[in-house]
């Protein structure tokens, strides 16, 4: 077992927070509360990202996920005025049983696999570079080697924008 450093402590705390609020998100039947729980979870995740020496991703995580995507969810929920989920719906029992079983099997496998891999993973070499250098280096990578993907992504976003606009437009204006 690895030593308990301060950084690890903070990371574990953040991860726990993320997991707890993710659970809240899944369990809570009110969609607005679910979204808010996910905001907290993602915020905790962004702290974890900082500790994994990815400050850029952490900032993007908050700006894009918490600041834009989840706000959008909140908006839609408020606009549609979605009610709380009914306690027992029309789902068939077989679906629930099968789901539970499949999830259980999958979870056991996934966690055991990750655990074994995490234990045997080769230890990292040296300390990570400073945060500032990382941002510039990541940006350089993004704009040189992955430039094509980056540009393709911008096209994708444009397509999504147009698509969302076309889909959400009221029928009468079409």
């Amino acid at each position, binding site marked *: 077992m690895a030593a308990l450093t301060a950084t690890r402590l903070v990371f574990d705390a953040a991860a726990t927070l993320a997991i707890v609020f993710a659970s809240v998100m899944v369990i809570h039947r009110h969609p*607005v509360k679910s979204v808010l729980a996910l905001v907290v979870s993602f915020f905790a995740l962004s702290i974890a990202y900082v500790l994994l020496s990815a400050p850029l991703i952490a900032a993007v995580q*908050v700006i894009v996920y918490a600041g834009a995507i989840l706000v959008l969810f909140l908006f839609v929920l408020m606009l549609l005025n979605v009610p709380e989920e009914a306690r027992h719906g029309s789902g068939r029992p077989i679906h629930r049983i099968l789901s539970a079983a499949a999830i259980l099997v999958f979870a056991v496998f996934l966690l055991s696999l990750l655990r074994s891999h995490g234990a045997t993973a080769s230890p990292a070499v040296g300390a990570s570079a400073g945060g500032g250098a990382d941002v510039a280096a990541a940006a350089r990578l993004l704009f040189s080697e992955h430039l094509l993907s980056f540009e393709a992504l911008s096209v994708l976003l444009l397509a999504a924008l147009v698509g969302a606009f076309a889909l959400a437009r009221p029928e009468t204006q079409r």
Partner: protein
Amino acid sequence: MTATDWLITAVRVLAPVLAIMLILPIPMWLERRGAGLIQDRPGPNRVGPFGLLQPLADAVKFFMKEDLIPANTDRLLFVIAPGIALFSALTTFAVIPYGPAVTVGGREIPLVGADVSIGILYLFALTSLSVYGIVLAGWSSNNKFSLIGGIRSGAQIISYELAMTTAAAGVILAAGSFRLTDVVAMQTGTWLGFIPRWNVFPQFLGFAVFYVATFAETNRLPFDLPEAEAELVGGYHTEYSAFKFAMFFMAEYVNMIVASALTVTLFFGGWSLPWYEPHGIGGVIVSALAFFAKTAFFVWVFIWVRWTLPRFRYDQLMRLGWKALLPVALLNLLWVAFLVVKRWLP
């Protein structure tokens, strides 16, 4: 890190926050006196000389009032919302440098809360969180005016954040760094010996877009649609009273100060003065005062504009944001890119 280091960091982070909380009554007083001045009436002049103690009296009033939570509200969110608003406003100040590095007892201490490498991104991240305070307040109040105000605010802040971020991207591009101390550093000195190397000169369009967008971000007139009292009673804070209302009220002024400070940092050289090279403790004081003075100026412009311009209609607001500010900000970005490629900047 030794205990001294921890202490110094704590002071560095807390000092600006405390300073803001302490001077907060000044813009509040200024707003009301300024309104009086602009509207050709005295303004508050009963409590203390020139009504100087009016904010204090207001504060007492807020504390004494009944703290009401209306029925059928979502209590948890209703209570948390003003906290989010104030918290996200206050923490933004942590990365804005307010003076040059000061040497105390052999230690060089930069006068900035936290000199993080992603300073500007951190600011935008927190700004984007501030929308939750207002949206949640609007939603949890269970009141149609509040809900409309909250939704308006959310849409407005997200829309204007695009223009604001794009305008700031020009500065980032010129500085080549997200770090706000670097942004200030690139703006020291002069061109041709008499033009300060402030970003506002090569990037005037960027500054204009950014500053207009901050008005929308802080929900101030002429973009105060979320609380438009003539149509929405009080908007998202219709149901709030007493201390919770005071938190919203304070958040607005803190946001104003932060927006002004950020404008100064990004476009007006931050704490630096064009012909002045700070030395020793005196230099630090002069620089900090310069920063304070510049920020105060923009705070005053906020007040000035509020009492001068009428409110926009919501569709006009959206049209301005998407069809005018955003393209202009992009244009500015192209222009800066051109300058950088031509090596005329920084």
